[in-house]
């Protein structure tokens, strides 16, 4: 309050943003970091889940096993994470699930001082990365499933008849073609993930929305902080969209002759 007011365009109190500037930069770093990590983890998880949902076998026994061990669990998983609000998943994760595994008193996985240190220093980051990745994995698995199914069966059959194993056929023949078709929906998903990371501010993760909430809470002014992070999010999504378009052009080259 001691610093002089700086007014932009006669109404935008730039001084309050300036006062909390470190929170916004730290927030930007956190938003970008969490988004990048979650895109990678979510894509990996999505690929595994997508393959699990497509798993099949020829012999009756193996077929039943793939159903029970792969298809059904993956289906239930995708159904749960797509069927419940992400915000609810984040609160459940932070205040219920993570404390169960990691708790100074009686954590199933980690307890004592290690648990306290982890929880205190990285609690919200862990919650953010775990819940966003688990959620993104569910959505991305559907993209993989659709992408793989969109490749004509003949491609797999041809590859297998040339002596390639299932894994080799997937890796060398099906996935490269499917990936090209999956790029636009994957890009959409990455943009959604970037925006959804704002929800983790509810558990105290110091990302962009947290910075805005702090300023709004301190000054009861809403235009300045939320407009500021809106512009920052918008620039980030523009950058991401540009990156995806770049990839599309690059991987689309084989098709355009």
């Amino acid at each position: 309050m001691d610093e002089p007011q700086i007014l932009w365009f006669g109404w935008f109190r730039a001084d309050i943003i300036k006062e909390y500037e470190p929170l916004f930069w730290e927030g930007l770093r956190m938003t970008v970091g969490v988004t990048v990590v979650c895109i990678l983890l979510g894509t990996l998880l999505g690929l595994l889940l997508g393959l699990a949902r497509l798993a099949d076998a020829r012999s009756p026994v193996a077929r039943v096993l793939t159903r029970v061990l792969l298809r059904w669990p993956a289906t239930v998983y995708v159904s749960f994470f797509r069927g419940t609000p992400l915000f609810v998943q984040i609160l459940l994760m932070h205040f219920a699930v993570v404390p169960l595994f990691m708790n100074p008193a009686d954590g199933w996985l980690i307890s004592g001082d290690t648990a306290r240190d982890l929880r205190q220093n990285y609690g919200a980051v862990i919650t953010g990365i775990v819940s966003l990745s688990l959620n993104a994995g569910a959505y991305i698995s559907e993209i993989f499933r659709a992408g793989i199914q969109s490749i004509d069966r003949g491609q797999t059959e041809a590859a297998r008849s040339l002596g390639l194993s299932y894994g080799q056929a997937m890796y060398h023949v099906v996935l490269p073609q499917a990936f090209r078709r999956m790029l636009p929906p994957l890009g959409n998903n990455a943009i959604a993930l970037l925006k959804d990371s704002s929800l983790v501010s509810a558990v105290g993760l110091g990302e962009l929305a947290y910075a805005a909430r702090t300023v709004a809470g301190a000054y009861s002014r809403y235009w300045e902080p939320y407009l500021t992070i809106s512009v920052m999010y918008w620039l980030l999504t523009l950058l991401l969209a540009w990156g995806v378009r770049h990839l599309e052009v690059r991987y689309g080259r084989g098709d355009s002759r």
Partner: protein
Amino acid sequence: MTIRVRALSCVLAVAALATAGVVPAAAQRTYVVGSSATYPPFAYENAQKQIVGFDVDVINAIAAKAGIRVRLVNTPFVGIFASLNNGDIDLVVSGVTINERRRQSYDFTTPYFEARQLLAVPASSTVTRLQDLAGKKIAVVTGSTGDDVASKAFGKTSANIRRFDTTPLIIAELANGGVDAAIGDNGVIAYRVREHKTLKTVDDASMAKEYFGIAVKQGNAALRDTLNKGLAAIIADGTYATIYRTWFKSEPPTLPKP
């Protein structure tokens, strides 16, 4: 068509004049009260989804004395002043501490509660005062007085200050070992800590006395004066003391006069 519309508006205008003449306008209006009902014992939702608590009893008693009608709306604290600004609610009774910064943007009634910041820490903690928390992780409610106290003591952009939306969340974070302490209003912190056997409260005597007030939109002197009159009346006739004893099991302090 035009004639009918004009005739209709004439009838309406006459009707409006008639009602205005019969009863004072103030009595007709129901004032919307914003309160964040996650703040026992001040305001919280009971099993019947009604908002109850000290704040609720006080505003109802004031309204009865001042002859106005009020309707409570559960409004999250983080957006409560925005709702006041844009007219969704007419007044805020939500354990709001009167401070200089808020005075610049809103008008307050005379105090209706005396408060102090209280620390909550694990039962084994050696913390005895605010300064002992230097370098430790602290949970506060975004924009609350506890947030102010922590921000002033340890820097408003410090990564050691963890901000959450509600008091239950800061207590949950503390109970789960995510922070070393939580700071909040005495009434609420004491109430919450009683629910957790692993926690205790620490009273730092150096914390300044603060007062809760009812906030109205800046310039709404009419409503503020009406509320002040009602508040003075319930303090004078002992209603206030009865409500205070019900919720805090102790005798009410003497509140400052304007």
